């Protein structure tokens, strides 16, 4: 099947784009209502639970993966320690909200400059340390984070290895039309049935509010990242990744941009940490160690390195694939039972299989599939484009 050619800027192209965007917006608007009461689909004898908490966590992860993408995907500095920045953001938010009774969002005022500063500081030695050496040093950073949190001296702020429970809740204001929207969605045929018939509890309302808050923060982060990548500095970052010496001799200030990439990456990672604190009302040191760092890299590569959509996909993939792996209790079709800590095994095998299928990541895989269906060509090729 030959792909259909769509000329960029044509009416058809605009319609396709419009349809894409509308689909996105509708999905984003309806999604939380569909999963606020956790779905329990059953596939091949396995039952899974998907709730809004997972979605919210995935949104935070998407921003964390985005942060890593700026540094590793676009600038080529492999970091295995971005969990350090995420953890810093999460703990700053947690501590300020719990100990000093700030509101969640206002903590960003502290999180953003602090993480930016830490990123820049880490970025300076990274100018000299390159490649896998950098990866290993940053991996050390990831390993250090939990031990710092657990220090006695910080216990008042972090509550040590028990983790920090944030008691303050995010309450939606009265004017927010959560219940109204729910009823409107219930009127939609088919989809509406999924949302059940009960009114939402206050916990579900909170989760929905958190969801929209997180979506907005994430949208702002992705927009920022996109503008950065398309700007002059963004092209400089990519040029450094592709050919450091070449970039340097064409007048790009390596130190400035490489440290800057670390700063921007740490900033977004810190914001992701705040988002995680908003979602879970709980931060714990052992969740923010090397496992977190490793799964960030997994999200980056599985989603698609140097690809913004890839970060979104990667964040969701990490959360949902992990979820799927731990909840699968029986091998489909064969019927082997998986009782015990099989989740990681399933996950590991899946990761390997995914790399076989799409070594460039899911985002590139999807683009390839899409290009079989239709292909957008620039307007000045109009003469060559077959009509219809």
């Amino acid at each position, binding site marked *: 099947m030959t792909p259909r050619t769509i000329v960029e800027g044509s009416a058809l192209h605009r319609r396709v784009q419009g349809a894409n965007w509308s689909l996105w917006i509708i999905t984003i608007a309806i999604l939380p209502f569909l999963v606020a009461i956790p779905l329990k689909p059953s596939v091949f004898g396995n039952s899974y639970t998907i709730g809004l908490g997972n979605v919210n966590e995935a949104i935070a992860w998407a921003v964390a993966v985005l942060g890593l993408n700026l540094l590793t995907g676009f600038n080529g500095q492999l970091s295995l320690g971005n969990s350090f920045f995420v953890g810093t953001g999460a703990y700053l938010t947690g501590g300020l909200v719990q100990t000093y009774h700030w509101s969640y969002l206002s903590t960003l005022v502290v999180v953003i400059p602090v993480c930016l500063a830490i990123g820049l500081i880490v970025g300076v030695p990274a100018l000299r340390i390159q490649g896998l*050496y950098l*990866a290993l*040093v940053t991996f050390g*950073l990831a*390993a250090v984070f939990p*031990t*710092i949190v657990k220090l006695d001296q910080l216990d008042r702020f972090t509550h040590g290895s028990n983790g920090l429970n944030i008691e303050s809740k995010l309450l939606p204001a009265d004017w927010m039309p959560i219940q109204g929207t729910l009823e409107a969605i219930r009127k939609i045929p088919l989809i509406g049935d999924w949302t059940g018939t009960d009114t939402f509890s206050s916990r579900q309302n909170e989760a929905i509010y958190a969801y929209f808050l997180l979506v907005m923060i994430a949208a702002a982060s992705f927009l920022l990242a996109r503008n950065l990548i398309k700007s002059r500095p963004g092209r400089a970052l990519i040029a450094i990744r592709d050919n450091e010496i070449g970039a340097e001799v064409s007048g790009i200030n390596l130190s400035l941009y490489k440290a800057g990439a670390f700063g921007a990456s740490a900033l977004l990672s810190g914001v992701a940490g705040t988002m995680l604190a908003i979602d879970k009302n709980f931060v714990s040191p052992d969740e923010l160690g090397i496992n977190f760092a490793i799964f960030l890299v997994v999200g980056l590569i599985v989603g698609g390195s140097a690809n913004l959509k890839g970060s979104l996909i990667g964040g969701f993939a990490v959360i949902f694939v992990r979820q799927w792996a731990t909840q699968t209790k029986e091998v489909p079709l064969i019927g082997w039972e998986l009782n015990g800590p099989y989740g990681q*095994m399933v996950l590991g095998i899946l990761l390997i299989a995914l*790399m*076989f299928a799409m070594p460039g990541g899911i985002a590139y895989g999807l683009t390839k599939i899409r290009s079989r269906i239709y292909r957008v060509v620039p307007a000045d090729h109009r003469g060559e484009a077959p009509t219809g």
Partner: protein
Amino acid sequence: MFLLAVSVDTDPELLLARVLDGLRFGSGYGALALALVMIYKATGVLNFAQGELALLGIYIAWALSVGWGWPIIIAVILAMFATATLAAGIERTIIRPFDPSNHLPLVIVTLGLFLAINSFVAVTWTTDLKALPSMFPKGNVFAVGVAHLTWSGLGMFITVLVMLGAVTLLLNRTKVGLAFRAVSSNIESAELVGIKVGQTLQFGWALAAAIGTLAGALLVPELQVLDPNVMLSTLVFAFAGAALGGLDSPKGAVIGGILVGLIRNVVVQSVSFIPSELSVGAAVFVILLVLLVKPSGLFGSSKVVRV
């Protein structure tokens, strides 16, 4: 004000005790780092699964020795063969199909292996604490007050040096070693002189797995616990050792590992203002300083590494 609080423990016996501890654990880190460096040299890839392959080997050795009552040394040797065979199989089936010059997917594959093997061990042998017997006799070679050099400490140190010597001889004096070095230098040219690149890398994986298993079998009895998480922290220190010594230098790996052991046990314990919980942090910090001066480690070659 902070500086005033610094005091360094200088009790010589205590210091000696810490140095001996550092050497003991450092030997174990160095041995695992040696395995990492073998794979890195050949493929340019950091093998995150190295520690877990060793973990599997340790459990096999445990099953053979504690379960079946075989002598521990035999059990460890068999476990080394078992993991080497497995690693060769892994290389053939799930590593070789990948484009060797594109490292990121390969890193994810080793992470996948890491998860899968770890989970396999936990499922097969449960997560209950176990104990692996040491290959060395109990007791001390000598003891001075709190400082004592155990037979196992001495044994580990010597074993690691012998391992390094054997690897060095293999690399520099044998045909397989020449093939290995040629492949790590230039894959295309290696093919053009008739080297079977796939088989050479397979050999590297097998050898690294055997080395790693031995490293684990040395270290775990000293840690006195065996559970499925035991190799993870060890892997972090081994990574640190490899980076410190230079990622492509076998000698550097061993020396780097030992230095990391010494940093952990001597520097952190002796300097009062470093909280002992921050031993990982101190090790990372020292490595950072070393790399700032020598960006490719103490003994690494300064070939530009692209990831």
